């Protein structure tokens, strides 16, 4: 057994451990007809520690030697003209992302296994959690756009299902639908990007491609990145998404999921290079998001919304950094921010007592209440206030789109099944006629939009 085989094995182990653990907990439930918390906890602890060890070795290897690690490919569907593979690969960029996702996944998993003790949804939570981790690993280690796309969908679905974890409250279901629709709409970007890339035979997602401009692919990816990373103008779902159990909020909206879009753009800028219009658009989105999230986030008075807006703003900063080409800074920013935000969200229940302890130690006068007075302050405040309820900005800038979304949500039951069917059909169809497929999809979505708006 040589060194390289060992490293490859470990590379598979990073994603394989949670996959096996997921299988084990599902099988255990099926065989024993009961939920055994202890077993789930042990599976999780074991698989996560394996993942972490494997990630540390692999990423250490990648970072130290400077070469990238081809973990391996796994054929999914092979057709006469093209082959669709699930391919994993770790390189200089993804090393940090993989490492952080293993680390945070482990800690938050451990946190949750204790925090959710005796909850009736214990098993459900951990199944979703495992799927989420698999999704995250496929995104961060994906060697090709198809792999990234699979992971992208996995974290989208689990995110929506965990927001509505307490589904007996209407509020959480409504907010979950909101996130779900933001995902659905923006995820079409990465789907289109995948199809286009396949058409050009450049679905590989690691080595720089220079012979095409690829603006369309970059733009499509940007759309998806904006959705997943809750950037302007699709970001309004994020503050509403804090309905699930605290640990899931922490890992999704503080730690990993919210950074997936930023990772995608990092990749895009490495592989395709950011052309001027894409970079400009990205910086613009980032600036708007930072501005918006700061203004609105400042007036939030509950712990989790406050942190959600803070996340939005910081990811916006990362977008700007990537747009400006400061990729290394963006990676460091991600590492640091993911840790901080996850911790803050896990710790969110402490803020009240921390605050009182603060006053206890330093005296109340130390806490500065400087209420701003005057008409201008008030009107500025009022705009931010209404914004945090209804999203006037979203309405103004995307009036038609918001209405479209609302209709989508209402017609959900009627034709969502349609959409899924169509996408899956498209997916198979596209191998022979990728361009035709994507244009068909666009046409179909367009017809739906216009039909439903005419009806209303």
């Amino acid at each position, binding site marked *: 057994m040589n060194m390289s085989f060992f490293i490859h094995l470990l590379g598979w182990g990073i994603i394989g451990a949670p996959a096996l653990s997921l299988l084990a907990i599902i099988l255990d439930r099926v065989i024993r007809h009961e939920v055994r918390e202890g077993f789930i906890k042990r599976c999780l602890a074991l698989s996560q520690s394996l993942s972490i060890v494997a990630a540390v070795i692999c990423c250490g290897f990648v970072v130290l030697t400077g070469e990238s690690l081809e973990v391996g490919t796994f054929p999914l569907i092979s057709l006469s003209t093209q082959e669709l593979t699930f391919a994993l690969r770790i390189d200089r960029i993804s090393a940090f992302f993989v490492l952080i996702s293993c680390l945070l996944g482990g800690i938050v998993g451990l946190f949750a296994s204790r*925090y959710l003790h005796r909850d009736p949804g214990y098993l459900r939570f951990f199944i979703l959690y495992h799927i989420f981790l698999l999704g995250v690993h496929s995104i961060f280690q994906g060697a090709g756009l198809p792999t990234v796309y699979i992971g992208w969908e996995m974290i989208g679905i689990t995110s929506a299902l965990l927001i509505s974890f307490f589904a007996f*409250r209407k509020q959480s279901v409504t907010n979950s639908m909101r996130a779900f629709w933001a995902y659905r709409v923006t995820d079409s970007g990465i789907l289109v990007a995948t199809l286009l890339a396949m058409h050009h035979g450049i679905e590989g997602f690691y080595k720089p491609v220079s012979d095409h401009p690829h603006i369309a692919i970059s733009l499509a990816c940007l759309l998806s990145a904006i959705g997943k990373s809750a950037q302007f103008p699709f970001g309004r779902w994020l503050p509403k998404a*804090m309905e699930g159990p605290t640990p899931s909020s922490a890992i999704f909206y503080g730690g990993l999921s919210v950074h997936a879009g930023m990772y995608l753009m990092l990749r895009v800028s490495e592989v395709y290079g950011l052309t001027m219009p894409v970079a400009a658009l990205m910086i613009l989105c980032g600036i708007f998001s930072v501005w918006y999230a700061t203004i609105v986030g*400042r007036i939030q008075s509950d712990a989790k919304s406050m942190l959600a807006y803070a996340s939005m703003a910081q990811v916006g900063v990362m977008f700007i950094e990537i747009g400006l080409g400061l990729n290394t800074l963006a990676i460091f920013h991600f590492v640091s921010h993911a840790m901080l935000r996850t911790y803050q969200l896990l710790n969110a229940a402490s803020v009240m007592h921390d605050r009182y302890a603060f006053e206890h130690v330093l005296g109340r006068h130390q806490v500065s209440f400087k209420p701003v007075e005057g008409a201008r302050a008030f009107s500025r405040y009022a705009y931010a*206030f209404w914004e945090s309820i209804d999203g006037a900005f979203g309405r103004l800038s995307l009036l038609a789109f918001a209405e479209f979304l609302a209709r989508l949500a209402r017609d959900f039951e009627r034709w969502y099944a349609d959409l899924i069917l169509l996408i899956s059909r498209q997916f198979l169809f596209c191998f022979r006629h990728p361009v035709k497929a994507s244009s068909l999809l666009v046409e179909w979505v367009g017809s739906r939009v216009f039909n439903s708006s005419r009806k209303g």
Partner: protein
Amino acid sequence: VFIHHNTLHAFEHLPFEQAVEQAAKVYGAEAYLPEQRYLEEHGQGRITERDLDAVLSEVFEDNQALPGFSLREVVKRFLVIAPPVEGFQEVKWLLRESANAVPSQGLSAEQLRAWLDSHHERINRRYPLHRVNFEAAEGLEGILASIPRGADIVDHERTILWAAALLSTSEVFTPADLSTGDEAGDRALDEMINPLVIRFCEEYLDLGFSNQLMPDRHEGMLACFLRMVDVAHFGIPGWLDPLRASISRYRGEVNNVGGLIDELLAELGVAQADRYACLLREALALKGWAGYISLVEHRPDMLHGQESEIRPRFEEYMAIRLILRLCAESSELYQSKLEELGDEQQELKRLDQLYCAAYHVLLFYTSLGCGAGLLDEPSRLYPTLRQLIELNSVKRRRLWHLAYESNLYSRALNLLAKGERDAARSELKGQFVFCIDDREESIRRHLEARDPGYQSFGTAGFFGVDANYTMMSGATAPYCPVIIQPTHAIREVPRQGYEERLAKYRKKQARWFRLSGYVNRGAGSVLDNIMLSLAGCVSLIPMVLGVVAPRSLRAMGSLFGSEPNIPPDLHELQVASEPDSDGSMPGYTLDEMATRVGSVLRGIGLTGSFAPLVFLIGHGSSSRNNPLRSAYDCGACGGRPGRINARAFCIMANNPRVRKLVSERFSIEIPSETHFLGAFHNTCSDQIEYFDLDLVPAALRGLLNLVRQDLLEATKNNAFERCRRFAQAGVVDPKQAAEEAVARSYMLAEARPEYGHATNALCIVGPRSYTKGLFFDRRSFLVSYDHTIDPEAAILLGILRAVVPVCGGINLEYLFSAMDNEVYGAGSKLPHNIVSLVGIMNGTSSDLRTGLPSQMVEIHEPVRQLLVVVATRQQLERVIESDPMIAKCFAGGWMRVVLSDGIGGDLWWREPNGEYKRFTPSEDAPLKIKDYSGWFLGRSGHLPFAQVAEER
């Protein structure tokens, strides 16, 4: 600060059962536990036949109801048989799928045929009377039509019996009151209005959490709201647009809110008679926020020093709701929502009730083998049937609940009546005054078991010290029961000779807290947040350690001064009054100190035979990431840890001049060699902290070390006993348990650091000798009281004045939170979110959650508290006469009261109406346990009450 109180405060004037059921209607809550739960408890023997008999014999006559069965017997069987079913679809499904549930009755074809022949006429007779009956009749035709023509009728016995049950039931059935008003409209309104009102309340009532507070809040709630609509030209929801036109009109009425509300109600078209109902609905739509607003309106001191800035008024809140309602009801959105939600189908609900009742009747008759009875003449069938149908789910559950309570009561009283007390005595070595808290029951037991020379007492944990505590930082807080407004201050002052160390410590502490305050909150500006998030990787350390190794995190933190309290050896308490008081609250004069020391000692019956060391042990709890932390602290100290109180009491009691006054005024001679020592018991980590150890006379040092060793062992055993409740702990010996307890109290990921009062059920007021050696499984408040030195019942009055609201409040809060965790309690802790430094809500926008989360009450047995008082009848009655609050509580049955004649004497129930009834203990002798550490190992449920027969 979290204070336990009766959740149904507003219904206290009613008897308990009535109040619970009425409140359930008003709040849309469950009155009792789900029926399934009672049935399970019955299956596990937690509710026995005996308990059911006892309850039924009080409620029902003993006449014959069915051939061979008395009414009581019938009801009892009915309770056990009637399964919880929810709707007619479920009934249909059950009938179709589980045929065996209805045993065959072996009826003859003639009997069935005869009934079939007569049923047409009966249906026709009832036909036009009632809509429900009409539907049932339709169903009936369908049911009978399902029997194929020419089939052997005996094979379809079940179908015919079901038809008969349905028909008979529908004829005597009156549907329960379902008038809940316009449900779809209410829901549509709530969906539109509530998110807005919640956001506004959050912002307006923000005590300083967000980075930018609402400006000009002093103008008042309504004015701020109107201005908010006025200044924003875009962004307000579309349906609010019409409001703009009338803003100036509402503005003019800001000072006449009552009038405005009247006008609004008139505009809404609410009839004079419906006004109360309408306002009640609006108030209860967000009962947490509305309640908080009306609370702080009356107690502006709870606004955290911002009473000049924030002016919440309940009236204005209601006016805002009504204004919004007016806008909402005239909007298109409301109409479309109405369509979407559809109207509640009242008819279906009635049908549900009818089918469930009929199904119960069917099951009941067939399982008794009286199936033929169902085919009986209506006139003979109806009396019993009517009684059974009247026993709807709420009434059944009421009976179940009484039986559930009675089981616990009789087990406890049995032990008190027949259990042998531990009477071992030896030379007194130490006396320990604990709080009455049920959580201290076990540590007292473990401590006393170590040495017969130890004696423990229980008194309210503030030890009579009703002071405002002024910290060195200038922050103050009252450390006394909430009903007392403190008039004295205790100051934290630097200890002589330690000033330098103290200054250094405080500097370190300030640095740490400034930093962590900054990290927690940020400063709100873009640049700041970027810097913060770039430096954020440091937070990996507290995150990993907080989950994996909380104890080492704590140790590391305290190196940097993360502990908010100044170590007790660096400061001392200034209890005495300063002569040059500058208008601030004075300390205590010698005279006042003597009053407090004397009355506490007399209250617990410690008037002679002092041990050389008397410990005063306050209690509190530490936990991490727990917004409800202060619910675990000492209720008698106003939901704060009882550290200061124990320490201050000892300073007073050790003062020779105070002792002299005490002996003069109370004739309690405290020997000069006796020393009082303050300590603090952390009920979560099970650690004990001692104060002013250096003041202990040299002669007592040796003894002190012995006692401390024993206390340490006792806390370990106590932790061991507690840990059996935690399924995840998995500890096997006291040493591990002690470590687990400490880890729990610092653990970031712990949703249940301790179970608090979750096991409370009893409260025993009497001398410790009355309860010593009995195992109450941490379920009893123990209050020390010696009725022989209290002929005037003045001490008892003082005790019950504190015990009834405090222990009763704790008990009822747990009870209601367990009964309906979503309405009365706070739901699951998992999605909780802290808001405005005021409280918690679910997720991003919800009502302010009141009550306790499910994690705190999951092991709780919701029973009313059983108060056992060892005293004479005259004493008890005298107390009840002289305090209307106690009288109301007892008369409503909010607490069950038993009077005891002492060890070996009789026990008397005091009924709500004031009668005394002797309690007759059962035959069986109480359980005896020898080695109880082995006994509770691996058992996480409630243990039986028992007597401890430990061999020394």
